[in-house]
């Protein structure tokens, strides 16, 4: 029995390492995918905003960001603005991020806004 466990661990260890190696940091994901609209400083002043009918959220706005729960932030990143009755200009990123990466992005947003809202 112990031998079987050892073999399973031996097989699984590299797989787990590969999986963790493929996960990108929230900071790098934010830089690559979010800054194009939310801006280099996260203030909603991205490269793309000039002709947008709805301006992107300022992630450093403590007051506004405090009104969003972590689950709402998770949902809007994964499913897009429409999923929380907001603009379609915020697209769904389900095929880009794993759920784990989205959870890390939510934590990153909380650092940017220096705010918290896990219970509302």
């Amino acid at each position, binding site marked *: 029995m112990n031998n079987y466990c050892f073999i399973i661990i031996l097989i699984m260890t590299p797989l787990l390492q590969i999986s963790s190696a493929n996960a990108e940091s929230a900071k790098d994901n934010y830089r690559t995918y979010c800054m194009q*609209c939310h801006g280099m400083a996260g203030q909603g002043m991205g490269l793309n905003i000039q002709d947008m009918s709805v301006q992107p959220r300022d992630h450093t706005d403590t007051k506004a960001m405090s009104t969003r729960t972590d689950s709402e932030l998770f949902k809007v990143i994964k499913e897009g603005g429409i999923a929380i009755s907001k603009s379609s200009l915020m697209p769904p990123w389900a095929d880009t991020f794993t759920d784990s990466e989205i959870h890390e992005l939510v934590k990153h947003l909380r650092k940017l806004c220096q705010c918290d809202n896990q219970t509302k």
Partner: protein
Amino acid sequence: MTTPLGKWLLLTLAVFSLVTASPAQADGLGLLNKHNCSSCHALTGPAPSTLAALWQRKGPDLFYAGNKYRQEWLETWLQNPKRIRPAGMFYMNHIKPGPKRNMVDTSSLSQHLQLNSSDAKSIAAALTTLKENTSLIQNEKHNSKLSPGPLGEMMFDKIFGCMACHQIEPGFGGLSGPEVYTAGTRLKAEFMLSYIRSPQAWDAKVWMPNAHLPDNNIQKLVNYIINLSKKSYDE
């Protein structure tokens, strides 16, 4: 920039292709080497699988150029290259803070090599032989009759939000993605269908999301894009 393995793969590709290629294609494969195209473009796959690799990419991947580009467009563009991505290949490498929004730092952008007509023709012919990812387009069927009519722009701008990253005419739209008002002459319809259906299937880390659109809406968007390219733009 090319690794020894990359050079070996390129050489192998060139030698293999020389056996079956037409004279123009064979010349083009040699010219790809001569002009060191692989220093900016990947001529063999796969696409970057990490963000670190994505950030370093200097030009579009060409290992599926034959499935992506229209040959006549390649031939014309290589003789008179104009910027397609307003903020370069990876926008974060070419932007700076501005008073109202982040701006393109044009001083960081470089001009593409301009070729004479003979070289452009040969390289365009050679690029058509690079056909990785064929399985992604072989089942795509373009329906040119599925017109969005007057709703095309509304679909692109408001309903699906594509204009957030793409320009639909010079000076209007987002800047982090390639302009779409020339895409209809640049890209094969089947490639556009497949790419909109799943950008990540072509380019795992690309910053274009998959909106999971139904086929009839993808067809309408592609036909809208093709219609855009029929207009003339003063730039």
